[in-house]
């Protein structure tokens, strides 16, 4: 299957960092895994939906993971919101949004024996990307955009 992707890896990393506004939503109202990709919304709708799901992560208190995790960094939230809106605007699959013990955010896609993860950490300027295909016995772990491997891997997650 050929998938046309206008999203540019470079564009994804060029987002400005800005402060995210707070929200009173529950942090349990997160993006769930394996939902169908969003394809018919306007960009403004997508931004609203993504912000509504990611902003609550900033309410997780210090130590939220029970092992001393810092609060989720608002700069990371802003970067991930923009990245995820770009992804969903292309009709690509919706990931599971996961807060990390390092105060960052991981986006995770799974399909059958394949898994794709992109992880932002406040301590690192690089964004880590990881892909594995257990059926093919193949995996890579590279800085985003993973030498051009990221977008094909994400496209392969489409149902």
């Amino acid at each position, binding site marked *: 299957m050929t998938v046309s992707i206008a999203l540019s890896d470079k564009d994804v990393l060029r987002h400005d960092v800005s402060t995210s506004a707070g929200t009173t939503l529950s*942090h*349990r109202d*997160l993006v*769930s*895994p*394996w939902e169908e990709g969003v394809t018919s919304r306007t960009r403004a709708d997508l931004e609203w939906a993504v912000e509504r799901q990611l902003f609550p992560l900033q309410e*997780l208190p210090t130590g*939220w*993971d*029970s*092992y*001393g*995790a*810092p609060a989720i960094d608002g700069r990371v939230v802003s970067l991930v919101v923009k990245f995820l809106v770009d992804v969903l605007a292309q009709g690509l699959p919706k990931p*599971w949004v*996961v*807060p*990390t*013990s*390092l*105060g960052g955010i*991981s986006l*995770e896609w*799974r399909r059958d024996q394949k*898994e794709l*993860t992109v*992880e932002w950490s406040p*301590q690192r300027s690089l964004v*880590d990307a*990881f892909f*594995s295909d257990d059926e093919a016995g193949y*995996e890579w*772990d590279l800085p985003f955009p993973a030498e051009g491997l990221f977008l094909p891997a994400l496209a392969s997650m489409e149902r």
Partner: protein
Amino acid sequence: MSPQPATPADVPPTTVPIANETVLLRRVHPNWFAGEGANRTITSQAFQDSADGTSMSMHVERRLIDAGLTAFAALDGFDGYGLVSLTAGQLRAEGFTIEWDPDDGDGPRGQAHVVVHCNKSSSRRKHLRDACVVVAVP
């Protein structure tokens, strides 16, 4: 009859080797679980070091039992969290080393505390995620 709490003299010192069949426990935040029933899964983020550089914390199940507790003592004070287990052998097979790290401020549970060293690459964390057994769900 409920088990009597062990005295410190009953609990072996934290210098004893940790056998490969030893079960180790890790708390899992509810945001790290997804799905229901047979589709339930956790994220490999559950097996990350701490942001301050401290290696990943776990508790030795046998040591909790020796102290008159159960595996679920690892969840005391953490309502809504899940619990997963791995054996020491599974961790070593991925290249991790395990070191006793008693937490004297955490009562008998603290004497079961260990840290798991090694670079937690995405691949290694995924392998731990795939190998772990879910003991309790949130």
